[in-house]
């Protein structure tokens, strides 16, 4: 299969998934709960008030028409009004999204900085003490609930040692950098404000680590097993036989081909991080989209719930698309495999 063909096929597939997702979200938020207008106004609202809101939300129309209006609104960036903030949900999301993007980017950094080297080293010293230690770390990583990591981290680093702050993105007295991207770390660097940068970094260390814990475990194990797979290949034996230094073989000849597996798993790891963010943002009072989403769920703010779930689905589908395409680009065998599966 040609690469362009592969690309188009993947793109169409992603759009199909997103369309399905929008139907699913519509069912969850508009049909399952019965009457969102009644839920939004509470049990004491009068019948007229509920009818009025139903009319305003367009809920007195037929379901297919409601769905059509919903989709049409999406293309205009209109996700409806949020009951709790009385603003357009799209506006709310752009307000809360950067904090989560920052958190997850930092978490992915943790995953690669800790997970990949740990995997490489445990493959290199297979069955040694380092391998066993990293195995324990990986198992604990996938077994521990992220909010537990957050809470224990707060207890140790904030309360006992007193070196990291407990909650929020910045200390109360630290001035906010001028908003350009919304990412505090980036904005403070652009403004050249290193005090703010340091403070923001201090605040993000614990929460991002709590988000990353699952991913670190996954990536460590996968890097290890694919390194071990590669190490038994003939060309590695040949390289060793030529007397190429071990360190060179490990990092140059083995790490590169074993990078495809961790990269495809990145999509999975991204999913777990998005999920984890919902728990961690609650622990650290992190003003991100997950915290906004949780509040919307607890208060039955259906437009906001739909918006948040949709944006997360969009992010997830996009990341998977990019990862698939990259994998297909690096390793043409994946493209061929896809062709045979479809037949």
């Amino acid at each position, binding site marked *: 299969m040609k690469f362009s063909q592969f690309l188009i096929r993947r793109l169409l*597939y992603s759009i*199909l*998934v*997103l369309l*399905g*997702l929008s*139907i*699913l*979200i519509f069912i*969850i*938020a508009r049909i*399952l*709960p019965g009457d969102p207008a009644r839920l939004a106004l509470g049990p004491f609202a009068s019948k007229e008030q509920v009818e009025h809101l139903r009319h305003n939300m367009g809920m007195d129309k037929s379901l297919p028409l409601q769905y059509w209006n919903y989709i049409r609104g999406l293309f205009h960036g209109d996700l409806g009004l949020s009951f709790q903030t009385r603003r357009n949900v799209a506006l709310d999301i752009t307000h809360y999204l950067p904090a989560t993007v920052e958190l997850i980017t930092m978490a992915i950094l943790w995953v690669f900085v800790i997970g990949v080297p740990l995997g490489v080293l445990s493959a290199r010293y297979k069955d040694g003490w380092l391998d066993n230690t990293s195995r324990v770390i990986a*198992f*604990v990583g*996938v*077994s*521990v*609930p*992220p*909010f*537990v990591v957050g*809470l*224990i981290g*707060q*207890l140790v680093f904030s*309360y006992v040692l007193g070196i990291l702050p407990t909650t929020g993105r910045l200390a109360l007295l630290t001035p906010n950098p001028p908003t350009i991207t919304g990412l505090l770390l980036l904005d403070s660097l652009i403004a050249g404000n290193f005090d703010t940068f340091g403070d923001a970094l201090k605040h993000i260390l614990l929460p991002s680590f709590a988000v990353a814990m699952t991913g670190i475990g996954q990536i460590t194990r996968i890097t290890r*097993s694919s390194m071990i797979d590669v190490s038994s290949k003939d060309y590695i034996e040949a390289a060793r036989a030529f007397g190429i230094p071990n360190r060179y073989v490990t990092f140059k000849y083995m790490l590169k081909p074993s990078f495809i597996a961790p990269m495809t798993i990145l999509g999975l790891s991204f*999913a*777990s991080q*998005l*999920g*984890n963010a*919902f*728990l961690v943002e*609650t*622990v650290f009072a992190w003003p991100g989209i997950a915290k906004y*989403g*949780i509040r*919307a*769920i*607890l208060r*039955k703010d*259906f437009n906001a*719930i739909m918006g948040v*779930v949709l944006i*997360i*689905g969009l992010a*997830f*589908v996009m990341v998977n698309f990019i990862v698939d395409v990259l994998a297909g680009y690096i390793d043409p065998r994946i493209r061929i495999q896809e062709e045979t599966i479809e037949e």
Partner: protein
Amino acid sequence: MKNKQKVLSSVNSEFTTTQWMVLKDKIGRAWYRFRRNSISITGGSMVLLVILLAILAPYVTPYPQHAGAFTDFLNAFQTPSKSHWFGTDEIGRDLFTRVIFGYRISLMLAVIVLGISVPLGVILGLTAGYFGGRIETIIMRTTDVFLALPPLVMALAICAAFTPTIERAMLAIASIWWTWHCRLVHGITRSIKTEEFVQASWVIGDSHFRIIFKDILPNCMSAIIVKTTLDVGFVILIGAGLSFLGLGTQPPKSDLGTMISYGAQYLPTKWWTTVFPSFAILFLILGFNLLGDGLRDMLDVETEGI
């Protein structure tokens, strides 16, 4: 006539004896591999301990009445001691007792969720993989849509539509969990379908039903068993997350996630209300993950896709 029957039955019994011996041999080997693997032994013992504690909860815990709504304000926030191993919570309930009863809820959650979703996913996966065509497209594309969101977010969204209770949380998780098994079984079915022994059954004229359940399903079993064991940990993790956010088990039931979220409010000083339930849940999930990993080595299931 009589003679003939005798011969037939003896052939029959002989056949079952050999079958039995093969099975015994298989189990023996598997058990040998299991015993040799320190990871699976550790995980297995952890799981066994938790299950026993959970079943015997009313007999092994010092204050079984503390599991539900019970108040003893005089004994609130006792530090861990001989009479209260894990200390007491904000209304004086023994935390050790509540942790053990919390295991009951976690295990029940996993059993019910997987009891619904695994058979459902397996049947849909078998159907999609075996029949192919339009059925396959519909089932697998639906699966893809469900997999387009992180499991916790999807469970949250479904929970959002209802008033939160533990039963609804279970249903919410079950309604997304079948997709993983569907995908797994679908992949295996597709590759087994082309094997010669399946073709042979087809040529003999076996029904689709028989081929699916006698030829294909047994070959998916080890993968399903391993995946299910590993799932227990994940499902409990998600259940705990929902409870932590207030969308799962409602108080006064003892649930580990709810306990941690209540304990966290008193964090720096009353550390035991958070720390002990946290480690309890880690212990449980770690046990299942170690066991699952050991089983994977034992049953020789490929790592990919699980």
